[in-house]
């Protein structure tokens, strides 16, 4: 029931938002809706029994598909992320103004419904459905409210991910016909007995879809462009939530379905991921646009997560799960700062900024904290995840961990470069009249900072939450 609520609240809220013409009203409405969703997930977390959490209804019986939602630990965690992210985005971008705000917020909420749906779907077809549904609103959001080259960039993103998901659809269909009872339900799909050869190519069909979404090197090129062009609030959704869809899907829909192939190809996937980590980190050092920088940094982090998902040990998986959440929170914080900078100075070019710290100390401090979480400093949330993931990667192959570890160094290089160029030094013409962070945005960032530290010091509840998923995956490997 909670699962259904989680989808319905943003869905209906989003539809309603289209009809609210007043901009501030619609802002309040969207905040209200996202808070309601947050309340719903809290109920779900507080009440662990399946009957309260899950939901199932008949949908397309002749296709063997039902409207089945299921919330296990990982889903709950990601739903929590999705529901936390939205209010924070609302609060921290409160001052942004949009043309036809009603459509903007409506689409944002619809995207949330789609994303949450992806995290909850326990039926292959339904999963695909939500997978696409999350994409469409985002496409419109980016194309309508984005930057100068938004149309081309967003379209590339859209087609790219669309190709991936269509390939997945083919795989899903094939799989469906292998189920004994012709059903899309997660359970039936898990039970399919496939030969190794079948698993092999199905694995790639699915993996490419997820790899594009995550994105894993070398499927990542849409990401910097899209992040750069999208309106920042949407970029937040993209990087905090949408990339998690790919990672989530690997855990829910790839590894359990094709365990043999996952083991067989883990090496390739991990090599790609590790290459991506280092490669993206190196590229991040070259960027001048803050958004592109964060985009590449995000690719590097995602690389580590995707590698960790395939290492086939508990440490890696647990680390990846906790990092799902941490990365979402941290990158959100980064975007909030970027948004504030862009709103205030009208530029995101590091070469044009500088010396903000003098005028906006609070902003600087908050940014530094978030940035440090981004480089996974201990006692921040990312450290726990990265430590475990590197440990998992190390167990898989020490050399990969060592090479991937270079990104730890590089991340420090580019993050500090960013801090220095934007915040330190003397202020210039652009930043001379900088003002400090406003109350709303401060609240948003403060929440993030709190989350960073709380999870960095007491990660235990998260471990407990996702333990069932991890155990399940490891069980499948055996």
């Amino acid at each position, binding site marked *: 029931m909670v699962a259904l609520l989680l989808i319905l609240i943003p869905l209906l809220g989003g539809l309603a938002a289209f009809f609210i013409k007043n901009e501030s009203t619609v802002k309040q409405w969207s905040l209200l809706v996202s808070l309601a969703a947050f309340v719903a997930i809290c109920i779900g977390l507080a009440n662990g029994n399946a009957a309260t959490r899950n939901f199932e209804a008949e*949908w*397309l*019986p*002749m*296709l063997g598909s039902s409207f089945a939602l299921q919330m296990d630990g990982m889903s709950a965690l990601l739903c929590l992320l999705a529901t936390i992210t939205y209010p924070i985005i609302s609060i921290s971008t409160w001052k942004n103004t949009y043309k036809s705000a009603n459509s903007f917020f409506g689409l944002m909420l619809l995207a949330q419904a789609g994303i949450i749906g992806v995290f909850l779907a326990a039926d292959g077809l339904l999963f*695909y*459905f939500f997978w*696409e*549904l999350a994409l*469409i609103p985002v496409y*419109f959001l980016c*194309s*309508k409210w984005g930057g100068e080259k*938004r*149309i081309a960039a967003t*379209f590339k993103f*859209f*087609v790219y991910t*669309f*190709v991936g998901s*269509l*390939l997945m*659809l*083919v795989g899903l*269909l*094939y799989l*469906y*016909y292998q189920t004994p009872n012709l059903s899309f339900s997660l359970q039936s799909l898990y039970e399919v007995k496939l030969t190794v050869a079948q698993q092999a190519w199905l694995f790639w*069909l699915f993996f490419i879809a997820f790899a594009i979404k995550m994105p894993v090197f070398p499927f990542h090129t849409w990401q910097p462009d899209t992040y750069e062009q999208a309106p920042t609030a949407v970029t937040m959704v993209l990087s905090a939530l949408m990339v998690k869809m790919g990672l989530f899907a690997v855990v829910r829909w790839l590894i359990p379905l094709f365990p043999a192939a996952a083991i067989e190809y883990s090496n390739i996937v991990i090599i790609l991921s590790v290459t991506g980590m280092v490669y993206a980190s190196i590229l991040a050092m070259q960027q001048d646009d803050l958004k592109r920088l964060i985009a590449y940094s995000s690719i590097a982090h995602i690389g580590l997560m995707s590698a960790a998902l395939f290492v086939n040990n508990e440490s890696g998986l647990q680390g990846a799960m906790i990092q799902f959440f941490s990365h979402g929170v941290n990158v959100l914080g980064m975007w909030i700062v970027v948004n504030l900078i862009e709103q205030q100075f009208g530029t995101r070019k590091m070469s044009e900024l500088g010396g903000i710290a003098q005028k906006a100390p609070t902003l600087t401090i908050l940014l530094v904290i978030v940035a440090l979480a981004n480089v996974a400093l201990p006692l921040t949330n990312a450290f726990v995840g990265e430590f475990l993931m590197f440990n998992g990667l190390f167990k898989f192959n020490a050399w990969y961990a060592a090479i991937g570890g270079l990104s730890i160094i590089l991340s420090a290089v580019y993050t500090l470069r960013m801090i220095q160029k934007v915040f330190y030094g003397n202020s210039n013409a652009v930043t001379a009249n900088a003002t400090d962070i406003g109350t709303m945005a401060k609240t948003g960032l403060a929440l993030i900072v709190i989350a960073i530290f709380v999870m960095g010091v007491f990660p235990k509840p998260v471990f407990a939450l996702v333990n069932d998923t991890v155990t399940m995956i490891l069980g499948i490997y055996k």
Partner: protein
Amino acid sequence: MNLIIISAVWGIVMMFSGLFIKNKSTAKTIALMGAVALLIANLFDLSGVMLINTNFNGMLLFDRFSLVFLTVVIIALIFYFLLSGKHIEEVGNHPYEYFALIFFIMCGVALVAVFNNLLILFIGIEIISIPLYILTGSDKRNLKSNEAALKYFLMGAFSTGILLLGIAFIYGGTGSFQVEKLAMPSKDVYTIFLASGTVLVMIALSFKVSAAPFHFWTPDVYDGAPTVFTSFMATIVKVALFVGFLNLFTNAFSVRYGDWKLTVAIITALTLFIGNITAVFQQSVKRMLAYSSIAQAGFMMLTVFAINDMSKQGMLLYAAAYSLATIGIFSVLVKMKDYTFDGFNGLAKKEPLVAFVLTVCFLSLAGIPLTAGFFAKYFVLAAAVKTGADLWLVIFAVLMAAVSVYYYFRVIQAMYFKEGEPQTIDTTPMFKAVLIAVAALIILLGMLPSLLVNRLLL
């Protein structure tokens, strides 16, 4: 049977109304009544009630699929009349005759859907084709229209020749025209006749449904014909011919599937490729839609490729989704002066509702979930996957579907994201209401395809 009779009769009614009613705009109303009559007749057919008792000597076969399909087609026709009726009247000086021809075509459509004898198929196709040649050329002063009509006619006649050669060979192989007897050659040595006939018939039907490499007439004819009639032939006629195609190959040749599977796979792949790729570069939306109809034909060809229960469901859904969306798009297009993509710039600001409906239609054509188009594609792909072999074709198809996003979204981009002086479109509240109904239907089918597909089960 009711449907065949009513449509033929209503054609005559339309002809004679033309004689007695001078007011042009009454035509639409009478036609609409006729369409509703067809719907009722068809519903009677569906429930097994015959208005006139006829003995058709096994020439026709009213199976559930064909009847449900005809219902879909008639509903599409009603929408077509509602949305574009006014423009049919404006094409030339013979509004009643155009409607009459449309009703004759509906008769042909019904025949093609329910034929059980190659002769009926042949006559049905001709009843569809001949009026279409005329409708294509109905804008007599327009050289493009003339040219389209002549091209269509010449190539159509040529393909009729191919069809007949095929039928002759089939007869040579089996000694019969009855569909159920076509599977087995009467002597083993005749197998070659049957095989030759099958491939030739397939080619001729491919021509009719504009599958590559027999699609060449399509872009020119769709482009040259008056836009209202393009809308008609790209939707109702095309899907009807597809159903004929599918029925023939399901009922007659499915036992010899192995012989022609590769052929149909090649045709499908070529159609998908040519349709989608060529559409990318088009500058005129109308011509793009012509190529898009080729591309969509490629997807529908997958049902012929698969030949199983899923392919019938898929065909049905595809017919509905594709017809509704295309009729919706054309109904707006016909009101525009500038058919280029730039003509759509900024439309969303001026006509948000129209833009929204168009978006839904284009999304449906592109096969995005929550629209009927998704499930249409889903079903045909599922049908193809179900065959268990030749997955390359399916993968190729989805890649091409991704390409199709490119040109469909160009319109959406123009409407929503590009600035421009939008054209004025004169819309009535009625028109808008119907458009909304189309969009609603598309979305409804996009969520619950079972509403339609379940009609196949009794």
